[in-house]
């Protein structure tokens, strides 16, 4: 019995074993938190009008996700079962408050635009979902990878949607620190006698839902295993 466990620990998994790679890559496609699990939709609809907001939101979620997953995973053998949800909530809430305070200090304009959505990271189902489903039962290493995978799965959808919405809605692309770059020549616009007009519908929340829908459509036509049978 004791030799068996010793052998098991000796054959320690490398951090980039096949199983661990799966943790990192799966959420990007097969188990994407937004398009497959349909979690975290509320923030995906609300803050994808501009790319820079989506970038900051993705980074914030990445930070909270990694911090939350690793901390909960380290504490997993100490957390009393009866208050585990409260403990997870406290960990996530504290990390979110730290992010919120840091944004207010270093990126005040973006903090204003994201307003309540930074606070709402606390209720982002992806984070609590990963803590409860993964970090509570796994070592810090895999939890770290799982956090990166899921945060990236969330992030690329956010970035894709916001690029589509900003390009067609505002004719521009914005990055944090650079401001908004309008790349279309002004004489193209109808107000200047041209032929082009920005699609204002793109700026409204319904188009985010439709854009996410289109991404889901493309994803499932490429990856047929995701199509549910009726």
């Amino acid at each position, binding site marked *: 019995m004791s030799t068996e466990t010793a052998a098991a620990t000796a054959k320690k998994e490398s951090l980039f074993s096949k199983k661990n790679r799966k943790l990192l890559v799966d959420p990007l496609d097969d188990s994407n938190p937004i398009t497959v699990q349909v979690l975290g939709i509320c923030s995906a609809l609300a803050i994808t009008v501009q790319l820079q907001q989506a970038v900051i939101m993705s980074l914030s979620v990445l930070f909270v996700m990694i911090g939350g997953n690793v901390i909960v995973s380290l504490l997993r053998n100490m957390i009393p079962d*009866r208050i585990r949800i409260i403990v997870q909530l406290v960990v996530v809430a*504290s990390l979110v408050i730290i992010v919120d305070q840091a944004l207010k200090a270093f990126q005040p304009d973006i903090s204003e635009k994201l307003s309540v959505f930074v606070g709402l990271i606390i209720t982002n189902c992806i984070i609590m979902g990963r803590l409860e489903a993964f970090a509570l039962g796994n070592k810090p290493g895999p939890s770290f990878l799982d956090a990166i995978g899921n945060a990236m799965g969330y992030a690329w959808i956010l970035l894709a949607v916001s690029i589509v919405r900003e390009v067609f809605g505002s004719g521009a692309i914005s990055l944090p620190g650079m401001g908004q770059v309008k790349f279309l020549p002004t004489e193209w616009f109808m107000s200047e006698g041209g032929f082009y007009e920005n699609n204002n519908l793109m700026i409204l929340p319904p188009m985010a839902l439709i854009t996410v829908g289109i991404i889901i459509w493309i994803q499932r036509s490429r990856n047929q295993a995701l199509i549910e049978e009726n």
Partner: protein
Amino acid sequence: MAIDKNSTGYTFLFSIAMVVVVGTALAFTALSLKDRQDANAADKKMMDILGAIGVSADRTNANALFAEYVVERVAIDLDGRQVSATSAAVDPTDKADPFSIDVKKDYRASIKSAVKAADGDEAALAAALSDKALEFPLFRCVTDAGQNLYVIPVVGSGLWGPIWGYVALEEDMTTIFGANFDHKTETPGLGAEIKESFFTDKFKGKKLDIEGSALFSVLKGGAPTDENSVDGITGGTITSKGVDEMINRTLKVYLRYFESQTRAQR
């Protein structure tokens, strides 16, 4: 000895330790970032004041432009008497500087409940506020064209939370030069539209009705307007009413000050 991590005692100990650790960490973060956040808030305030007189500023030049355009900062009391005035450089840490008067905090702490209790009765409202020692800031600006403008901060309540803004009056103290508004949590697409330029542009050139029952009105969406009123936001009735209420309540205080100024000049 193995500890039973599901025992009541352990659960309590764990919770207590967790709260202490988390509390310390958060207090430390908040304190170490406070200076930067305060500086950002001061910049934002300058940008808003400059916005009301039609000067667009960003965070990099707000301080310089504010010093250039805002020539005097005055604090007045509820009866319109001047309490203090300064033209020195803004020092956000100086509590006596009229720039540091936190009108949002004053509104939250004392004015809001008094307005609700008075329910439109002006005498009752004045009586309720008279012992609060409130101060109201006024920013006198001079434009490039040499025009004297008075910027007045206003704070009130929308549907879900606080709304605020800045109203700039021309030298005659009755013509509105410009205004801007902002809000915390009004409904996007409805009440939240008060911060958009299509709404604030309507205030330009309107006049305060000094003799009338209301100085200025924000009417229910679609109603015909005259020179003392603007069209409110359709679907944002409560927010529009909040804008109406905060303008009337606040400007009345400042009009008392303006009257005493014109009397002094005669």
